[in-house]
């Protein structure tokens, strides 16, 4: 699905997948003796790298990010991002975004403004089941638009995808009426490649970003 691979996938993956060995508090002979043993767990970690830009920190999603996520998805602004969602739906979507890191080894970062510590949005790499290939996606929360923060984060995420994961050239999947996102895609050098329909049936445009070599 990906083109322009510069790093072998197994090498790239090892840079982002973390496997932690949990202690074994209830080993064989413990309370599960004769019934079950609690074996050392090898966990599929979510290990999102932290990326710093001039004004932002990109870090993995944390539980405390849910309120801002739910607030965005409760608003009409989320219509072009699969919303609106009620809190239970938003929670499942948030959980899916976390599990995406585990299943793919990459995902959507939370954006923290360095000067204020404020959670300003999400940017990253999105490739759920049914998607044609990995996407570079971005969302800014209310009040943080118009300052170039999405562009700053998207450039960092795209570089990470190209240089560290060997992905690319990436696409961005954008609703035809999402003029702000289309403008940003163009500023990032992406061009309209084709029309597509989301698994939900909604029509979208696929923008293609420049080749890794050109960025």
């Amino acid at each position, binding site marked *: 699905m990906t083109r322009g691979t510069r790093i072998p996938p197994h090498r790239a993956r090892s840079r982002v997948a973390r496997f932690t060995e949990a202690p074994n508090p209830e080993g064989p002979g413990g309370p599960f003796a004769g019934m079950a043993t609690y074996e050392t767990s090898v966990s599929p970690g979510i290990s999102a790298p932290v990326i710093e830009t001039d004004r932002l920190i990109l870090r993995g*999603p944390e539980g405390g990010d849910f309120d801002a996520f739910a607030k965005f998805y409760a608003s009409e602004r989320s219509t072009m991002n699969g919303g609106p969602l009620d809190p239970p739906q938003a929670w499942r979507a948030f*959980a899916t975004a976390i599990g995406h890191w585990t*299943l793919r080894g990459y995902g959507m970062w939370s954006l923290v403004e360095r000067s204020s510590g404020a959670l300003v949005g999400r940017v990253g790499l999105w490739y759920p089941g*049914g998607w044609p290939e990995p996407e570079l996606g971005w969302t800014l929360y209310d009040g943080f638009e118009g300052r170039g923060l999405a562009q700053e984060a998207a450039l960092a995420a795209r570089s990470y995808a190209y240089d560290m994961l060997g992905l690319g050239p990436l696409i961005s999947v954008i609703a035809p009426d999402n003029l702000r996102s289309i403008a940003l895609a163009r500023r990032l050098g992406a061009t309209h490649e084709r029309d597509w329909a989301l698994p939900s049936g909604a029509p979208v445009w696929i923008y293609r970003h420049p080749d890794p070599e050109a960025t």
Partner: protein
Amino acid sequence: MMHDPVLSIPVLETERLILRAPASRDFDTLAAFFADETRAWGFGGALNRDEAWRWMASVLGHWALRGYGFWMIADKESDAALGLCGIWNPEGAPEPEIGWVAFAGAEGRGIAYEAAQTARRHAYEVMGMGTLTSNILPGNTRSIALAERMGAHFERTYENRRLGEMLVYRHPGPEAVS
């Protein structure tokens, strides 16, 4: 209460089974299960393949956010995915419940019972939970039979916003099953 999303999913071993984290290699089996409404209706309803992928990812996220979730029930010898069992408590749920399902071909061998007994014991003794329910759709006679076999009793009904009226079965507490 939410936990930071550091995934630590314990592996539980029973006589015939391993309860472990759902993994990409299980996805085709999981998608086939969710594609079959006659089997999936009692477990939240049918999902297409894309929805099933997001559901599987959400299970991992549930573990990260809650510190517990669904295990894949795997065959101890072959590692084949046989079903799902675990503790489920997404936003909007009344309280943590223990859920289970056996995939096609894995029913009738006591696999869900074996897995659920182990998961419940782990929830009480390691995770420190004080009580557990199972929410079951009316008419899901196999699940009701399993809940009763585990000593759970019907407590009340509640309205699941997506699935409608469900039967809440209350399990015996930690002191009764230790």
